[in-house]
């Protein structure tokens, strides 16, 4: 077991940032923490890498208690923070040298490790320019390179691709997969559902500090909603009546737009048309994590049935 959280809570005054978190991350897994802004994802990560002590509960990383073995555990993990913390006047190579010293890597080994990281994250072309001259994508790659400095057994990524363009995101996902093939365990937070669906073997969805669902992406889709999604538009004022006629169908509504979930979307569409002949079909598609996420945490959308 790489990470084990047992009934972990973090309280600030009256408010629980994390409330009774249980989770287990196995070796080699990619584990995702999902949830809207303020759900407690970043706090959960800070508890796990030991920067924030829990108000209650126990956290084991590499089978050691994080509150008593903080230095030993942190020597074996790497963290990419949500915000890059780079020295802007220095180059990527110089930033990596500074960070390598935090891990007490001796100079010769450090130069070799820096060379490997520059190659792994494709930073070589810009390795000697000041960081402030680099694009957001380059800066993010440098931040990730820094978190890989010590060859971590556990890599913690806090919203690794927020604000990056699609090409950079794809490249980073590719690197994460390579790391996993080499045996690295990955724990990440994201609010991009496509990212979670592509990378994660298992995830928990958090809302207001609590876990509201857990499982693999297909399990979550099956358990929370259904495999197929049907999007229709109904005339004003017809939603409640149509939903009542359909009975027990899981639905999400946004204005005139209605999303319905079923094992068989074609049969469901028939039923919708019988209930409301003026219903307009928008799309039939496989249910994705985005639907699950909205069903579990969406506040603007109303859950039906």
């Amino acid at each position: 077991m790489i990470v084990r959280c047992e009934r972990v809570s973090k309280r600030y005054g009256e408010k629980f940032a994390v409330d009774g978190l249980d989770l287990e991350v196995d070796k080699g897994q990619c584990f995702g923490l999902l949830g809207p802004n303020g759900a407690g994802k970043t706090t959960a990560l800070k508890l796990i890498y030991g920067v924030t002590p829990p108000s209650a509960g126990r956290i084991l990383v590499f089978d050691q208690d994080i509150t008593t073995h903080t230095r030993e555990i942190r020597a074996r993990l790497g963290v990419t923070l949500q915000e890059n913390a780079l020295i802007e006047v220095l180059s990527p190579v110089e930033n990596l040298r500074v960070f390598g010293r935090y891990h007490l890597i001796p100079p010769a080994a450090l130069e070799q490790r820096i060379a490997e990281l520059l190659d792994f994250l494709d930073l070589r072309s810009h390795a000697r320019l000041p960081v402030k001259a680099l694009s957001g994508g380059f800066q993010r790659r440098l931040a990730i390179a820094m978190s890989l400095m010590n060859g971590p057994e556990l890599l913690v990524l806090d919203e690794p691709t927020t604000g990056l363009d699609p090409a950079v995101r794809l490249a980073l996902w590719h690197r994460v997969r390579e790391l996993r093939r080499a045996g690295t365990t990955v724990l990440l937070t994201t609010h991009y559902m496509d990212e979670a669906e592509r990378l994660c073997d298992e995830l928990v969805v958090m809302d207001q500090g609590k876990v509201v669902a857990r499982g693999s992406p297909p399990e979550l889709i099956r358990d929370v909603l259904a495999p197929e999604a049907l999007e229709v538009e109904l005339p004003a004022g017809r939603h409640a009546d149509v939903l009542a006629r359909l009975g027990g169908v899981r639905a999400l509504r946004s204005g005139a737009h209605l999303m319905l979930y079923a094992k068989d979307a074609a049969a469901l569409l028939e039923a919708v048309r019988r209930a409301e002949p003026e219903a307009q079909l928008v799309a039939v598609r496989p249910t994705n994590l985005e639907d699950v996420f909205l069903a579990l945490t969406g506040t603007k959308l109303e859950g039906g049935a």
Partner: protein
Amino acid sequence: MTVSPRHALAVWWRNFAMYRRSWTLNILPNFFEPVLYLVSMGIGVGAYITEMGGTSYLAFLAPGLVAVAAMNGASFEVTYNAFVRLNFEKTYESMLTTPIQPEDVLAGEILWALTRATIYGGAFLIVLTAWGLVTPLHALLAFPLVPLAGLLFASIGIAFSLRIPTIELFSFYFTLFLTPLFLFSDVFFPLKERLSGVALVVAEALPLLHPVRLMRAAFGADVAPALLLFDAAYIFALSALLLWVAARVIRARLRG
């Protein structure tokens, strides 16, 4: 939790690596400050003063300005710079993803502030030696007092920086704390000759007087040994107290 010296050095090295790149912008200008005071007050004002504290005005000013150089060197580092690293650049947050602990961050920052104090004060001592205002032997005696003065002001500054909510409050620190210290700590005139009663007690309680008096003694002035012991004890005791407070605050701040 105790300080790990090697991790504290890694924190020190981070600042060193950054300022090595930009020392002409960050460090060089401050070096001229005590030299300018010495020239203006010592040569300009000093021309109208036949003697002060038993020497020429120029020679009277010199030791106090060494202590002031150390005070300024340490203060810049633990105020604006440390505040930015803590609150804006997320430097400490990033350090705490590695085996570095809050205590190491504090120790590394203090060590770096001492380094800067020593660069300022040491460079000024060299200028004074070349000028002939202090003999090489007395300059060597005075040198260890530079980081000692730096320690005192690094401790005061960091305890302040870790507690304030906005960066604007540093203008109070500099204008209403450091500037009065500079003006009323035996640097420009002998306090004992101009102050009496309560004013003298207040002056003794303020921090800059103590490194200034030690510095004067190192430059060869006649100061009672008991008074020097008191000055050294003051510096160590206040620094220890404030660093203890700072360690508690930085743990609370960084651990959230």
